[in-house]
């Protein structure tokens, strides 16, 4: 071409465009530097020579619909400019990410199919932030998830771990150690603790209601860790008794709870007098398998132990709150440990809390 010819060439021809086709058939052209920001498109252009004209438009994956493509190209258009500062980019990202969760999910999927990792990270983090700190009900509502698991299914994965031989071994070792520590403390603490059972439980309940981790209040109030553990175990056992009685009568009857609570208390006081029982109680709640292994003194009839375990679990399953904490508890102890909702004194706040659980 002569020099004159070169001068006549229109400026648009100097800029390159890439042709893209979405799954619905529509074709559009996009500035090259913007489109090439996506690794998948880059690959198609370089390795396969596609995208240079309408006939050879690059077929985008099905997950990329025109709306998503438009968003992705906005993202690329901003970020492919080299001179931008980190602050600018971050600011853009924060504004860009503000969209409803449905679109966020679609965008994650589309960006993933185009291998645009920075955008996948951005949207994934946004989705994680949405999930973080929310209750299961809230999450289900936000994302329109079906509540299609039974209570039993929900706990199944966690229960299975207690059958794992490694866990049994570990639990056996822990139990042995705990026993040792308890032997030393037993005689000192027994009288003091019996008196204090009631107070401890109420404190624990209130703190649970107020949203603390069920254990933490106990820790703050106790002087020694061993004392505290025993106290908690006693209190939990009390609750378990309540739970059992409740389950047998009417799970939803609150009045029943209050009555049985008092009954249970009396029963407990009598039961608690037996010093040997302390060891066993602890073991029931800390370690179901341990009993099966017959590693500890069998002071309570094994059948009754099993029954207590099952009832506690069954009953606790009806509750559905604070799952991360509950799950951690489950994994820490082998099974549920929050029948505290229904134990002892039925003051106003307790009732209210219990009410919210009865759906």
């Amino acid at each position: 071409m002569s020099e004159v010819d070169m001068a006549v060439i229109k400026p648009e021809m100097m800029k390159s465009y890439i042709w893209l086709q979405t799954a619905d058939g529509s074709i559009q052209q996009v500035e090259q530097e913007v489109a090439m920001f996506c690794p998948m498109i880059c690959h198609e252009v370089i390795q396969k020579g596609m995208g240079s004209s309408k006939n050879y438009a690059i077929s985008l994956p099905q997950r990329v619909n025109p709306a998503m493509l438009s968003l992705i190209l906005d993202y690329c258009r901003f970020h492919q400019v080299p001179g931008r500062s980190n602050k600018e980019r971050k600011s853009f990202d924060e504004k860009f990410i503000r969209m409803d969760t449905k679109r966020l999910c679609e965008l994650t999927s589309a960006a993933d199919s185009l291998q645009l990792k920075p955008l996948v990270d951005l949207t994934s983090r946004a989705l994680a932030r949405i999930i973080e700190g929310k209750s299961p009900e809230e999450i289900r509502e936000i994302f329109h998830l079906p509540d299609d698991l039974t209570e039993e299914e929900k706990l199944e994965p966690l229960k299975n771990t207690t059958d794992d031989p490694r866990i049994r071994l570990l639990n056996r070792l822990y139990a042995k150690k705990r026993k040792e520590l308890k032997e030393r403390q037993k005689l000192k603490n027994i009288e003091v603790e019996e008196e204090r059972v009631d107070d401890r439980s109420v404190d624990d309940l209130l703190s649970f209601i107020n949203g603390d981790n069920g254990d933490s209040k106990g820790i703050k109030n106790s002087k020694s860790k061993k004392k505290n553990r025993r106290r908690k175990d006693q209190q939990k056992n009390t609750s378990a008794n309540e739970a059992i009685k409740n389950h047998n009568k009417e799970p939803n009857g609150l009045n029943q709870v209050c009555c049985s609570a008092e009954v249970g208390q009396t029963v407990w006081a009598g039961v608690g007098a037996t010093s040997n029982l302390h060891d066993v109680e602890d073991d029931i709640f800390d370690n179901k398998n341990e009993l099966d292994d017959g590693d500890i003194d069998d002071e309570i009839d094994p059948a009754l132990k099993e029954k207590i375990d099952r009832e506690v679990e069954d009953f606790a399953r009806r509750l559905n709150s604070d799952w991360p904490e509950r799950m951690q508890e489950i994994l820490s102890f082998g099974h549920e440990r929050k029948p505290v909702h229904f134990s002892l004194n039925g003051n106003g706040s307790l009732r209210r809390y219990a009410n919210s659980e009865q759906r």
Partner: protein
Amino acid sequence: MANSVNQEINVNSKHKKSYDRISQLPDVLIHHILSFLSTKEAMATSILSKRWLWVWTSVPILDLQDTPFCRTDPNLHFRQFVDHVLILNKTASLDKFCLKFNLVDHPSYVKTWFRDAVSRDVKELDISVHGTESFPFLKLPFALFTAKTLHVLKLSHGVELHVPGTVSLPCLKVLNLVWIKYTNDESVSRLFAGCYVLQELVLHKHAGDNTTCSNISIPTLKTLFVRFAPTGRRRHKLKINAPVLKQLNLEDNLTLEFDLEDVSSLVEANVTVSWLENRHIPLLKALSNAKFVSFHWDWYAEMKWRNFRPYRLFLNLVQMELHVGYGGWNLLSLFLEISDHLEVLVLAKNDNCRGLGFECSWKPPKYVPKCLLSSLSMVYFKGFEDLTYQLSMVKYILKNARVLKMMDISSNGDLPLDSKIDLLKKLLMFPRGSKACQLKFN
């Protein structure tokens, strides 16, 4: 009638299904989303719906954190929790294992956790321990020091670096040792010797960590962040032998003795010291190849610059930042003299020392430095205080800089508006050696 009701239900459920976009994402993406949550939160998603029941068990990231400073029984619960999680999580190839916990009991159980992680080809380990009175430090199991797949290792707080004779970390690229204790001076050297491809090192040290010298001799090191916590005047030796080191960030609050044997590839250096004194002269000399240097100090002790007269000029230095504390403005003249190709100069009054040093003085260089004549194009002065010596600096530069494009002066907020206006008038009156020079004032 029953049929139509059923149909209605079907339509509704289909409709609902189409809204549940997140469950339609492939497992890989859901793992990615869950990887930004702690494992406890990720685990809680298992009860959301059938789709989510087992997804969390394949997330290749474990982030397990116990509540800090919890000294009593719940630590046992955390322990069992971790055991159970390690069993439930089925990933064979762990990308990251982040563990923050309190050392309440004898740490024998911790070994199992680390061995599990290593056996799962863990790529990144982030361990932070809160020691207690009975168990102040955790010694890591030796298995960790021969982990073939480890790329990133971060240790902080209650860890004691007790290193076996043989260390082999063939993939380790990033190492962070933050406020940990060392068995002796050799432990860290042995660790470095076993890192064949280490590129980035972050080292935060405090006195009482059982070392008297820090020997950083790593042939592959590209980035080094070293920080010494303020602890009183205890001698500590810092030796750096890193021929491919590109970036050095150094914070010296101890009395460090510098032995920079080889940092010849250095491109960027950011140095912060509390007391700038003679012992920093070897450090300054070692920075002579750098392109970007920033120096930040609080206090200045009269330095013997005769020792500094460099045999090498700072020929590569393109951008220089001086955050001046209480005195030491003469460094400006020094650097102008030795940096022939300086293009950008940033002068700042250290915020820690604002209001101090009003009696300081400044001596201009003997001869007009070459960089002013041929290369200096941008000058920034932050925290300008309208003091005599500061004005004379600005005047000198404006007068002698032939290719200066911009002089940007920002005063700190303390000056009242009319003083600012007077100041601006004064500055505008200064003669400028460069016709293209713009004066910006904040």
